[in-house]
């Protein structure tokens, strides 16, 4: 089975996904919302993520017996129309997240690396890479993540070291100045950037459990959460009132040191290596979007489905017609509520839904 993945691979991939998306525009948006308390919003968002992740991992453990896929569980426990509706919401989330990630990277290439091109030429290699990965199966993506994990982690740590020494964390005081209600609200309104575990729904039937389910993934989650909170704290402490204006956090932090100009631009190298994690995230989400289409149309794509790939490819042209800011102010702003259903409510219900689906499957097999 080409979509199989073991828990260790899943854990490493999850950490890459956490690091891949939260270091771009999110820190500046949060700084605009709650100023120097933005790291608290990130911390709260990770608390919700942590709770939901535990429930999802519980569901994965339960599902180990029957190896049902996500639509198998939802169809049997919530009925097919609701299952399809949930898949539609997932599809919208994945497409929006891919578009936001690609737009941010496009800007980073343009302003940091001074390489510019038109949108179609930019996404063409991304599309080819993505669908080659989808064609090879999730196992290929997971193994790629496993292979590159060490390099990317070193790059992230290296990017943080230089600004870390310049940061006065006293700037984060007084804690909670923006108001705890605003901080909590910001962690909710910006929840679109969190809950990276949602990709696990789409490999439920391929997860191979050896011994531990919780510990490897929770360790990854903890490392990812600490790095993300640290980066946010560094960002707002370092840039103060300027933080909301700097929309490329990792670019600003990563190439911060003036010393690198005279000692060699290793900062560009580490930034480039970190960018790989963003593209891995794009590939994983595209895989999930592809699976969503499979579930929505109700088929089982035994062979590579060109129509699904074409549909996803067309949706990636969105930034040519709508700017990222417009997307943030409209679709994503109002989409937070339905997105919350699948990001937070669904994982909390997953153990129950999985058990229900399992029971129904067993009853059906007994009857047949």
């Amino acid at each position: 089975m080409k979509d199989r993945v073991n828990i260790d691979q899943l854990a490493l991939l999850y950490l890459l996904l956490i690091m891949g998306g939260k270091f771009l525009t999110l820190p500046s948006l949060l700084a605009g919302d709650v100023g120097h308390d933005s790291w608290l919003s990130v911390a709260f968002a990770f608390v919700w993520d942590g709770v939901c992740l535990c429930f999802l991992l519980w569901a994965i453990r339960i599902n180990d017996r029957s190896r049902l896929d996500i639509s198998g569980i939802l169809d049997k426990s919530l009925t097919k129309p609701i299952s399809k509706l949930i898949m539609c919401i997932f599809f919208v989330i994945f497409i929006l997240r891919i578009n936001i990630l690609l737009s941010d990277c496009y800007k980073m290439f343009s302003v940091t690396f001074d390489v510019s091109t038109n949108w179609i030429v930019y996404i063409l290699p991304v599309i080819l890479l993505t669908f080659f990965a989808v064609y090879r199966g999730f196992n290929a993506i997971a193994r790629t993540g496993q292979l590159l994990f060490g390099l990317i982690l070193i790059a992230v740590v290296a990017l943080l070291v230089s600004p870390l020494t310049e940061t006065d964390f006293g700037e984060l005081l007084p804690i909670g100045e923006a108001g705890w209600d605003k901080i909590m609200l910001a962690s909710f309104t910006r929840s679109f950037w969190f809950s990276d575990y949602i990709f696990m729904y789409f490999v439920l039937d391929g997860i191979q459990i050896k011994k531990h389910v919780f510990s490897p993934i929770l360790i990854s989650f903890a490392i990812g959460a600490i790095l993300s909170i640290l980066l946010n704290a560094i960002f707002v402490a370092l840039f103060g009132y300027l933080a909301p204006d700097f929309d490329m956090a990792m670019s600003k932090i990563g190439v911060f040191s003036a010393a690198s100009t005279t000692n060699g631009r290793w900062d560009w190298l580490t930034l480039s290596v970190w960018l790989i994690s963003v593209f891995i995230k794009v590939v994983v989400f595209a895989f999930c979007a592809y699976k969503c289409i499979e579930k929505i149309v109700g088929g089982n794509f035994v062979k590579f489905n060109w129509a699904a790939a074409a549909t996803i490819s067309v949706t990636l042209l969105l930034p040519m017609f709508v700017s990222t800011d417009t997307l943030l102010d409209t679709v994503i702003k109002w989409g937070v509520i339905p997105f919350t259903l699948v990001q937070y409510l669904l994982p909390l219900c997953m153990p129950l839904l999985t058990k229900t689906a399992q029971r129904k499957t067993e009853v059906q097999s007994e009857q047949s």
Partner: protein
Amino acid sequence: MSNLKRIGIVLAVVAVVAAVAGSFKGSDVMDRAIILGMGVDLSDDGGVVLTCEVVSPGNGTEQVGTFSKIVSVVGETINTAIQNVAEVTGKEASLGQSVVLVLGQEYYEKVDFSDLTEYFINHHSFKESAVICCCEGDAKSLFNSGNALTQSMSIAISTALLDQAEKIAVPNNSLLQYARSQNELDRTGFLNRIKFVPSENTDSSLPDKQMGYIGYREICIFRANRYVTTLSEQQVKGLSLFLPDVYGETFVSFEDIVTRTVQVTDKKVDLKPDGGGGFIIDLDITVRYGRTDSEEVSGPITAKNNTEIPQKVLDDVTGQARYVAEQYLSAQVEYNFDLLDFHEMYRRKEGSSNALATKPMQDFPVRLSVKINES
């Protein structure tokens, strides 16, 4: 899969790769005028004169590497001036490698340069950690004095202020720190004031060559990007005593008929609110005779020496340190600027407010105690 199909796929991939590769418009390094440092002066019509030290990679007979040339252009704004660099050099100006920005005297004394600060802080390529400073006279002359140095003027200024200043008791500043200081709380901050100091030419093979070095012991105070005052050397020395990361202050004392120089090797600065709206500052300074030609090992966990500095010298140094510290504190009140973050300390306790931001320095009475120890 048939061979024909495989060949077809390979050809398709080659075509796509060629199309994609050909469509990315990168800036070739050969087409770029890499600016190492910039100086900004006021032009006759109120615009800016921008002087750039440019490394222009080329081929053939062009010089490469650290060899640079000085280019001056005029523009209505800093943005137009930078665009005009392209006209003069024939290459696109690139600020990503810039390490220093120098403001000429007439410019920083007469102009509110908020737009300039905002331009560079929001510039995608210019680094926020680059050095920003002001200079005696005009920046153009300063950059054109570069031939007197053995290295690039921009690198020389950057090295002096980034690496050396803290070791000889001169505080320094980056663009980011400066920009924040001009926009947050009391909106006051400082820039190092540099100057080219000519020195005697001892090279008989080049008798006409000008020689000199960069002096950087002065500091100018700014409020909301407007010039306030220049601190004297004594006041700068006093300021540096309050900054925990700045070392190397020297004090000269007379022990009987011998002149002794002691150097600060470590310090503890305990600056805390006194609960009544003022501050208590305890300076615990560690000194030793200045006898080494390199930076000495310092800090609380270094091995202790036997006492060799007489109490009389220590008392004398205590008096001198207290004097320069008080000189600085009185300047802080007189010109109402805050480099010791008094406002920031209250912000960290109470949060931001307009009342705090506008609170004058005379409302922060200071009780100072100075203690000198031998390391």
